[in-house]
């Protein structure tokens, strides 16, 4: 298998370079001669694509779909319910701001806060541990995000945090989700633009097995407009050559091994388990839970949470978050988009976070026919 690291002498916001790359995409699509669908699995990729209007540059027949690339969107409802239960039970729940409005079965953390619970927004796991140092009460860090936030959570836990600090882990691990998406019957993807942020920690080498097993090319991409067009061109080259290759188009941040100390720290503290990804499916080995060694800091063990996840599902029948993250629908195909479902009153989790595909499409005007 070829590992091509490509030309990295990129001017990130150079329209001339963009035009050359667009021409290259056109010519590659001519060579391929049939429609191609690329999936990215990162909210920041979607943001850059929408913000810079890159879809309007794509040649006919080339479609970019969004995958399960937003950690807020894939946090499952019972996980939110667990956090809400702890908050209602008098614990201080600290979490990233994006998590506050994510709907649980009955309530979001924002609702719990409005009812008097102590829910605090933090920018990092260490900030949550600092709150525990200052407070006598139990402080639970509702930890969400992929590898990029899991490693910092691990760093706090190995650093002997206060006794009244614990972690409710909803951390997720990206690679198994790509496998699931590759296997979904209705998802027809010819190549993956892999998440540059997560690969910063885990390294691009991690995707070798995936590429071999699914015979689908993958390119790790950065987040500037030129990064993305360059990544797409590399993918189309692989597709044209019928080669399930792997390339690193984000060399300035990503290496083959990744950030080894951070990775080791992460695997010291976490282990994988099978978990439900909201709207997607049950994904084997894709949820990160605290390992035995750190179980004293595991909020699930410390508080023996038994969330009642029954009741009405706030995702109405019309919400198509699952289809959007599976790459079979665009946000503006949802009948709730921008009307009943808005960032202020999200029905589905894709409308909550700045990484969520629906929120991004609402902010940047969706896919214009222009």
């Amino acid at each position, binding site marked *: 298998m070829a590992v091509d690291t490509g030309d990295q002498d990129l001017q990130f*916001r150079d*329209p001339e370079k*963009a035009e050359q790359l667009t021409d290259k995409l056109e010519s590659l699509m001519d060579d391929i001669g049939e429609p191609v669908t690329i999936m990215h699995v990162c909210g920041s990729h979607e943001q850059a694509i*929408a*913000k*810079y*209007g*890159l*879809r*309007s*540059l794509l040649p006919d027949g080339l479609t970019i779909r969004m995958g399960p690339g937003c*950690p*807020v969107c894939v946090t499952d409802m019972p996980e939110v319910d667990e956090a809400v239960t702890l908050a209602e039970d008098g614990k201080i729940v600290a979490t*990233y*701001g*994006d*998590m506050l409005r994510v709907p649980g079965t*009955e*309530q979001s953390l924002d*609702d719990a806060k*409005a009812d008097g619970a102590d829910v605090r*927004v933090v*920018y990092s796991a260490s900030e949550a541990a600092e709150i525990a140092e200052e407070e006598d009460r139990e402080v639970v860090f509702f930890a*969400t*995000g992929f590898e990029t*936030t899991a490693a910092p959570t691990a760093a706090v836990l190995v650093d002997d945090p206060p006794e009244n600090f614990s972690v409710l882990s909803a951390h997720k691990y990206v690679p198994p989700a790509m496998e699931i998406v590759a296997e979904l019957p209705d998802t027809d993807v010819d190549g993956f633009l892999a998440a540059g942020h997560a690969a910063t920690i885990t390294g691009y080498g991690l995707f070798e097995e995936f590429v071999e097993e699914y015979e689908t090319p993958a390119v790790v991409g950065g987040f500037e*407009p030129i990064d993305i067009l360059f990544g797409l061109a590399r993918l189309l080259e692989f597709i044209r050559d019928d080669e399930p290759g792997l390339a690193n188009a984000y060399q300035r941040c990503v290496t083959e091994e990744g950030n080894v100390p951070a990775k080791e720290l992460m695997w010291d503290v976490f282990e994988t388990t099978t978990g439900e990804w909201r709207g997607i499916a049950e994904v084997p080995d894709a949820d990160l839970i605290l390992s035995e060694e750190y179980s004293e800091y595991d909020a699930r063990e410390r508080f023996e949470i038994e969330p009642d996840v029954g009741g009405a599902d706030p995702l109405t029948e019309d919400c198509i978050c699952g289809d959007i993250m599976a790459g079979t629908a665009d946000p503006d195909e949802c009948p709730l988009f921008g009307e009943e479902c*808005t*960032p*202020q009153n999200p029905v589905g989790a894709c409308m909550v*976070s*700045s*990484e969520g595909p629906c929120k991004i499409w*609402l*902010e*940047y*005007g*969706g896919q*214009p026919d*222009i």
Partner: protein
Amino acid sequence: MSDTDEEVITEAHGAGGGQMRELIEELAVSRFEDGAADVPLAALDDGSVQRLANGGGSLVVTTDSHVVKPQFFRGGDIGRLAVSGTVNDLAMMGATEPIALTCSLIVEAGTPVETVERVMESMGETSEEAGAPITTGDTKVMGSGDIDTIAINTTGVGVVPQGSHVPDAGLSTGDKLIVTGTIGDHGISLLSEREGFDFEGDLESDVAPVNDLVATAMDAGEVTAMKDPTRGGLATSLNEMASKAEVGIEIDETAIPISGAVASAGEVLGIEPLNVANEGKVVMGVESDDADAVLAAIQAHPQGEDAAIVGEVVADHAGRVILDTGFGNRYLSEPEGEQLPRIC
């Protein structure tokens, strides 16, 4: 979910976008008499325009309440904001020589007298700068915690020759769009300060009266529509102008003047400069043939050196704004709700 399904006012209703417009239309406009006005309340323009008897011109009236956090910020304060906001709303209707302003204060008990003094001092200075005398006012004090320190309402009155007012719905195909200076300064600066980010560089609010600048532009050519892009920013103003005139607008994003400090702080915060408030800038439609002359006049004014032509009005895409990002095209949407810095 709340205990009841009762609909309540949220902060998003005050953020200046579609939600606020819907609220105003449903709650207020439908219940108020319009009278015979050239620009009635229902137009939801920056002010109303009523004809005076005997051909004595038209009366322009506007009102605005001001609350801001923090109340003293880099580049200004709530007093300067209160005077500039109303003077600018009059100017947006073409009334660049205000006859009178009012000042209605609501102060929280416990506020140091010195704080109110500083705000009044600032209002006095700004009213002098704008040539807009404050001629009447009112003061109320509310209990501690019932209001956050100080809120100010200002109403402004001006006169324009009959039929010469500038509505925000006046764009036609071919008009050029000019912005009079760098965009996003007030909003990005305040968000940074509020969130405790201390960005290096010269981030500060642009709050200022722009009536003299507008008069200069109107003297140089035919201005067809104007808005001061306050809450909701340039994105909201452009969408309103496109939708009211039922025309399309094409904007060249690379031509929009944005300071380096605002651009980088915006990236760090995850906030689009086009979506946040400006308090000393104007976006105006100008007849195509006059565009260069108006631009030159604005650029020669001390407040307009960064002015630029940023786009034009087109017949296609009625009601929508197309943004050419320098790479591809996308719709420029109105921001939804309060702009919040990226957290995770």
